[in-house]
């Protein structure tokens, strides 16, 4: 099989972004604090990576207030899901390539 690197997505080279996308593919939506708790990263680190994903059009952001506290929720977009799946395919073919 030819090595198809066109599917490899540089956006997911960052581990936080890759993990955020994994969570948003497995779940319909997730809020900021739950993401932070699961990933064990700082507010700033998480926020800047979420911003990048949003700019790429991979996730959407929904801000609302629960009991007057801000509650920000994130969802994957179809484009984001597709990109994530492609990236997985690229990783798989890389492994297969090296396994030979």
């Amino acid at each position: 099989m030819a090595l198809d690197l066109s599917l490899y997505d540089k956006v997911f080279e960052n581990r936080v972004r890759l993990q955020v996308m994994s969570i948003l593919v497995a779940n319909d939506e997730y809020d900021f604090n739950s993401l932070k708790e699961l990933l064990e990263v700082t507010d700033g680190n998480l926020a800047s990576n979420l911003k990048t994903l949003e700019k790429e059009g991979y996730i959407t952001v929904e801000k609302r207030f629960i009991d007057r506290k801000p509650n920000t929720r994130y969802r994957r977009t179809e484009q984001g899901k597709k990109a994530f799946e492609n990236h997985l395919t690229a990783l798989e073919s890389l492994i297969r390539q090296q396994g030979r």
Partner: protein
Amino acid sequence: MNQDDLIKEIGHIRSMMEKSSKFISISGLSGILIGLYALLGAALAYIKIDGIQSGLDYQERTIDKSTVTFLILLALAVLAASLLTGIWMAGRKARRIKQSIWNVTSRSLLFALAVPLVTGGIVCIIWVIKGYYMLVASTLLVFYGLALTAGSVYTFKEVRWLGLLEIMLGLLALLLPGYGLWLWAAGFGLLHMIYGFIVYKKYE
């Protein structure tokens, strides 16, 4: 990237997908304890209804008001002890595996469990008010099984099998109301212990 990096990368993906969507802090040991409480409760109920001397065969029973009150209180005591044990041990396990006990997954799990459980509880209250006591054991088993099957999406896949088996026992209890207590003991006691043992062996 070399092979090890790639495999690690995929490991991160897998663990995040799993951790974010499944509540895995349920303790297997608590399953065994809860099973023990249920067996103890069933034994007390058996002694109260039939006396220690009676046989194990199929029986038509008539029970009076005070016995019903005793059985309800007993069932509530077993339920309370089970809930406390389950929550306490889940909290311990959560600390150990660094998962919080109140998060997206536990909320989803609780909601999925609550809908069938509350419905079943209300149905049982209606049975008791109407005097259909013999339907209570089977109704509890069936709705508890439905709750587990619904909740299994958010936790160990073994929970689905536990749920299906509880439903089967409940339906059997509906066919054979005289064996209600025995099937109840098998469902809430024995099955919990077997399930708890399997989860303990496999995940802890």
